[in-house]
């Protein structure tokens, strides 16, 4: 799989990605697990806590906040299209 932007998170990212792809293809796409994707949640938590520091260090958390502000309106348009 492609690398994580934080090399120290590569290993846990790899495990999470594999879990997600399995869940997605074997359950979600078959109409199962449409209420939750809990089975990868523990891995995601571990991955996310590793990644958080890297995002902060690179200033990406701030860029994300700015983009989210900007995005709120876009989300509404994207979703509105399908309602």
């Amino acid at each position: 799989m492609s690398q994580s932007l934080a090399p120290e998170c590569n290993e846990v990212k790899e495990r999470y990605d594999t879990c997600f792809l399995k869940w997605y293809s074997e359950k979600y796409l078959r109409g199962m697990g449409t209420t939750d994707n809990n089975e990868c949640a523990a891995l995601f938590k571990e991955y996310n806590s590793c990644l958080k520091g890297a995002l902060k260090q690179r200033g990406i958390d701030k860029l994300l906040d700015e983009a989210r502000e900007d995005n709120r309106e876009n989300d509404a348009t994207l979703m509105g299209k399908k309602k």
Partner: protein
Amino acid sequence: MVLTHTTSHTYSHPFPTVTLAFFLRYCSPQLNPFASHVLSTDTISSHVDRDTGRLHTTRIHLKKSRLPPGVMKLLPSSLTGGTTDKASYILETSIVDMREGWMATESRNLNFVGVLSVVERQLYAVPKTKPAADNTDVETRVVFRSRLGERIRDRLGQAQAQAEAAVNEGGGGFFARLGARGVQRSIETLASTKTQDQLGKSREGMCMILERLRQTGIMGVLELRKMASQRGPAEVAR
């Protein structure tokens, strides 16, 4: 000033497979040689909405910059964020609705937005017109916006107002405005041309992954990915 580019395409693969390929498209240069400009991919959130059953996913990709190094060097550090690295962070949000048969995605750059903002939106859907269960339609809309020219124009505008107060003549202002608009236009056009190339490549990359999925299924893809990563990053072509 804004440039918009819209294209439609139909994949001859079923909708669920196409959505899977979307998540897999940057997974490995062995699977998709057209993704060698993607340096990293991270998931920052993923959840299923209990009411709608929709899967919401947010990822961050680090890609080599669309703008040529020459352009980057010319830009003041206040606009490029003072970074010397020429990679840009891309925020990708996606929503999949398996019940209704559509996937909406959006990708936008997080840095360099002062120079150029590129927002790409895609809507993948099961075709409505014919009962073609094995096809997937995708509409792609890319919006380019350069704020650089606006900033220069603002600055020139102030100077111009002072000059105009002294000499009641707007000729210099006209050329200054043209110049600023020219800069902005060229950045947008440059990025747009590059993006059109890139859209073709990204489609080819999707097709390679789709073909692989057709041949070996997801387990085959996961196996290949594992083998590729075990061979070590040294052998992975960048």
